[in-house]
């Protein structure tokens, strides 16, 4: 791409092409600059509101105070962040294993899919907060409780997307495999799984965010009934103590984690699909 851009710039351009090139450059910068400046403006506005209305720091702390707290409480907050991250990633890994595993099982036979898919939907549509008291009764281990919760929230998008992907294989390609005497396993490995990859990765992006949400929600529910050390319990604690700056600091850490998870998964998806899938291709011309 760089080589092509270079040669375009080197050649003599008519005004129309020159304008288009300029617009492209401006757009590229604007894509980063605009959201960042809006964000900066919002933070400045937040600060002004606090100062002008003389709002006490236990109601709405100034951004600077939140930042100070983030630094001063760093050992406590980052320790909690680590706990939350651990649950998030473990549950995401389990969601991938469970979601893909079930999807592959469903793809083996229409009957299996027809029989069990409704149960997956039931698990998905029942709010996790409502299921948690039951989990609390049946599961002793605190970590296992949280994992189970986060897993239930995160596995469904992977299951449903991967199932869709495994079933949307080009009919002719399936005929080709059949004509060449492919076994079921070969068809799965060489055809269905690669074809399902874009769908799976779409599900993974959703599941990444959901596993964080699941981890935090599970901790919230568990935190009120037992002891836990993740970010959610820091938020509850800070709420009880009217420690708004720490509450905000913890909140920022959670959002930031969510953004990082999304970006990392988008990057993974892009790297895997960039050579062949339409979604990863740059618009040309």
């Amino acid at each position, binding site marked *: 791409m760089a080589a092509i851009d270079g040669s375009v710039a080197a050649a003599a351009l008519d005004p129309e092409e020159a304008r288009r090139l300029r617009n492209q450059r401006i757009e590229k910068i604007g894509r980063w600059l605009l959201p960042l400046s809006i964000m900066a403006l919002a933070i400045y506005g937040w600060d002004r509101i606090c100062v002008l209305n003389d709002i006490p720091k236990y109601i709405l702390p100034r951004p600077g105070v939140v930042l100070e707290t983030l630094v001063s409480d760093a050992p406590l907050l980052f320790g909690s962040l680590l706990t939350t991250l651990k649950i998030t990633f473990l549950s995401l890994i389990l969601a991938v294993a469970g979601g893909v595993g079930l999807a592959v099982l469903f793809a083996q036979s229409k009957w299996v899919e027809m029989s069990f898919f409704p149960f997956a939907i039931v698990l998905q549509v029942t709010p996790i907060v409502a299921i948690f008291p039951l989990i609390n009764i049946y599961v002793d281990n605190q970590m296992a409780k949280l994992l189970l919760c986060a897993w239930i929230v995160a596995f469904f998008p992977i299951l449903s997307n991967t199932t869709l992907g495994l079933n949307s294989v*080009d009919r*002719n*390609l399936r*005929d*080709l*495999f*059949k*004509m*060449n*005497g*492919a076994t079921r396993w*070969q068809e799965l490995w*060489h*055809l269905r799984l*690669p074809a399902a*990859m874009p769908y799976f990765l779409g599900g993974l992006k959703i599941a990444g965010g959901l596993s964080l949400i699941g981890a935090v929600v599970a901790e919230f529910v568990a935190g009120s009934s037992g002891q836990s050390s993740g970010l959610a319990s820091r938020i509850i604690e800070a709420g009880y103590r009217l420690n708004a700056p720490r509450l905000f600091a913890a909140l920022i850490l959670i959002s930031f984690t969510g953004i990082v998870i999304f970006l990392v998964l988008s990057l993974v998806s892009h790297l895997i699909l960039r*050579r*062949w*899938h339409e979604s990863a*291709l740059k618009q040309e011309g």
Partner: protein
Amino acid sequence: MLAELREAARPESGGNAPLLSLRSVGKSFSNGVTALSDVDLAIGEGDFVSLLGPSGCGKSTALRLIAGLSIPTSGQVHWHRQVESGSVGFVFQEPTLLPWASVFENVWLPLRLRGVSRNVAASRIAEVLARVRLNGFEDAVPRELSGGMKMRVSIARALVTGPRLLLMDEPFAALDEITRFRLNNDLLSLWEQERFTVIFVTHSVFESVFLSNRIVVMAARPGRVFREVEVGAGYPRDEAFRTSPEYAALCRETSDVLGAAMNAGGGHGGD
């Protein structure tokens, strides 16, 4: 009259040793459509047979029956000698490549599914890729290729197992005319070198006359063999043949037969 026509459609395959025969083959689908009715067709070794007809005449269905992708409702597809795995190649209307796999891997696929490793397959793959003039593109993925090149990959994949019979289902229909002419020439020279048998489904009179030594004209509703046209012109055929009076005359003759086949449609007329 009908009996006469059927007689005309059953010469024993132009003198070549018989490879396979369709004997009173019929195919009806569960939705009540009769795709093929009472089709008799003999294919000889080394034949280049085109199945020509309007849409709905069951030519693709016939190809699927021969490929073993579907079984006939009545009659049988009879092979005159044992067919071993890999002796039938299929080229679809679309290139039908694995979009995530390189050209090399796409051509390797039929061998790979038979347990042939990459290293063992490499020389054979290089050979077929050279034959379709795609050497140097081993590492490209399909989206980086033009429509004609994708179709060449598809043909290379069908040839990699060294098939005795190549089934082609309107393979060049979606290509522009210049590319189609080139691929027609390429296909003919491949066929002359290797002497496999080709059954070529098309709705183009010009393509069928240029390529084949026998044209089986089919009629629709129900799909059936209407008449067979022998193309007497010798091979090799090249651009000079494409503009010759002989070619024009053959096209006119075939066109007339096709016109008659469409008028003979089962009471509903052609489309």
